[in-house]
């Protein structure tokens, strides 16, 4: 007895023939499949890396902002980004905010560029120290905040705690920048703008988009390091009362502070992102790279699918002669495209994970769950679009050609 019926007993309901035919056609020509997969893998890796860098950049640009609890930000006019502080606010913003209806609380935030002078540590045996005990300088971005109201800043603390920043001249630094700042452990010293500071809090993984190290301090030390007057700040953070309308409060506060810009958190976040990602061209470049990868993927897949379809044209003509509907033919080709997409995606993502793992020390890279699933959808869509030319070729085929062979 034929195994056709035997297969039923063993495997239950057989695979629909359109799917089986697609699968067999795909794996029949290994070279063609390899070329298709190389194209898809190339696209997936390129898109995944570009998008991961884009998302990583996004994360780094707004990571500190996102750890600050504020509904409204009062910023100097013309501020382009959170980490690009310009002038200090005049100094009456906090009081103005507190007297605005709907405001629950307000406090100041210092963000300032500063000169970090490395000092030879007592344990330093590597010879960076000069006779004067100085090891050169580098630029840093100081973030001075009210430790009582900003409980999430800094985060991912591995040594010390937020309260330690209230100690005299205490700073928090990230272990990523140990080498650059000549810091090795809690208690190591340095100078910021000629003020001696001591590392009291160590974090892990807080990195800036601009590559300048963030230095976290309590607000008073931040003011000292930025040469600000006691009432001055880079930004004023406003939290609205429960039930109050953020936009109403923002408008009201803006009316009271005509010399400053009053922005919602989301607006300032978007402005910061837009500045770095689009005004500087960094993000546009990444997006262009990803779009290019999609185009390359579509072209490669459509070329190979078209070639594969042409190779099987006689079979498609036979199918048409046997009465296959155009829907059935479309299904076969689309299944081929989807199968290629899934195999290419899996291989591409494995390679992408390896690439991003090795690049993560050098570049801002973040592979999110949404990106992983989004890429699957994009890869399948890319391959389906690529199948269109092959479908048109087959749908137009004259089934009468089966008699001429």
């Amino acid at each position: 007895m034929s195994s056709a019926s035997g297969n039923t007993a063993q495997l239950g309901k057989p695979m629909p023939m359109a799917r089986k035919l697609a699968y067999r056609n795909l794996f029949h020509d290994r070279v063609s499949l390899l070329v298709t997969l190389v194209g898809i893998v190339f696209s997936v890796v390129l898109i995944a890396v570009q998008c991961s860098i884009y998302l990583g950049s996004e994360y780094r640009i707004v990571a500190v902002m996102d750890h600050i609890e504020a509904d409204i930000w009062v910023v100097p006019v013309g501020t382009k980004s959170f980490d690009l502080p310009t002038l200090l606010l005049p100094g009456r913003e906090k009081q103005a905010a507190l007297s605005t209806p709907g405001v629950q609380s307000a406090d100041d935030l210092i963000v300032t560029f500063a000169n970090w002078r490395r000092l030879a540590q007592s344990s330093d045996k590597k010879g960076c120290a000069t006779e004067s005990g100085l090891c050169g300088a580098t630029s840093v971005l100081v973030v001075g905040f009210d430790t009582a109201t900003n409980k999430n800043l800094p985060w991912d603390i591995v040594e010390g705690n937020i309260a330690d920043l209230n100690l005299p001249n205490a700073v928090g630094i990230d272990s990523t920048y140990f080498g650059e700042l000549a810091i090795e452990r809690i208690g190591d010293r340095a100078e910021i703008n000629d003020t001696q500071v001591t590392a009291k809090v160590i974090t892990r993984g807080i990195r800036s988009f601009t590559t300048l190290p963030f230095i976290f301090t309590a607000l008073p030390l931040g003011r000292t390091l930025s040469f600000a007057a006691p009432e001055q700040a880079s930004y004023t953070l406003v939290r609205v009362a429960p039930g109050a309308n953020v936009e109403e409060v923002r408008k009201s506060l803006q009316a009271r502070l005509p010399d400053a810009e009053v922005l919602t958190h989301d607006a300032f976040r978007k402005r910061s992102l837009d500045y770095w990602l689009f005004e500087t061209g960094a993000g546009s470049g990444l997006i262009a790279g990803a779009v290019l990868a999609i185009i390359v993927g579509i072209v490669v897949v459509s070329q190979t699918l078209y070639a594969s379809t042409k190779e099987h044209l006689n079979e498609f003509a036979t199918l048409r002669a046997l009465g296959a509907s155009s829907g059935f033919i479309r299904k076969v080709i689309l299944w081929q495209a989807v199968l290629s997409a899934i195999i290419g995606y899996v291989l591409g993502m494995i390679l992408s994970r390896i690439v991003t793992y090795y690049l993560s020390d050098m570049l801002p890279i973040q592979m999110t769950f949404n990106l992983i699933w989004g890429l699957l959808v994009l890869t399948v869509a890319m391959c389906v679009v690529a199948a269109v030319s092959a479908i048109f070729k087959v749908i137009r085929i004259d089934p009468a050609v089966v008699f001429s062979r």
Partner: protein
Amino acid sequence: MAQEPILEATNIVKFLGSGAAEVKALKGVSLELMPGELTLLMGPSGSGKTTLLSILGCILTPSEGTLRIGPHTATGLTSEGLANLRRQHVGFVFQSYNLVPTLTAAENVMLALDLRGTDLSEAPALAAKALKAVGLSHRADAYPSKLSGGEKQRVAIARSLAGSPSVILADEPTAALDSENGKAVMALLAEVAKDKGRGILVVTHDHRTLSYADRLIRIEDGKIVGRARRRARSGNGAGAHAA
């Protein structure tokens, strides 16, 4: 009681090409396929056999005339409508077999069943039955590349039988086969033609096939020039006489 023809073509005219290159390939052809009969369509190259076969198989539409398969009229149908009609009512056997090389013999038959809307769970058993009918149960898992020409043609016949279409159209089914396999294939088609719900038309040049025919139609220059009907059919053939 007179039997109803299973396929009826009336005054079929077909123009091929256009403008100065236009050719009248069929010039008012009428024919009938009767159930339980094997009809041979013979004629020289260029006589219009293949064009007529394409029209009878709902692959081409006639420029003039009507075609009826069972209760269905093919005239005026769209390409999808024609595809539906041939899917449901017409089985094809091609000169070059036209099996799908990436599918096994059983899967080739199951493909035709799938196209005809057979329930997937029933398809393997029906495919096995069709292959058994052509004596190829033992080759069900073989790919076409591993089959001989005669076996390929028998798989093609099994495929044409799958789903029990009322009309089977065979285009030079013995042309690519040696004498022995050619006879075996014709004998098989003649056996299949005994089914009272089915009519078979075989287009052929091969005079060795004459003995298997119930009817013979000769076509020349796009016109039917002769019709003959055999008195009785035997396995090794008997003479035909002019109608």
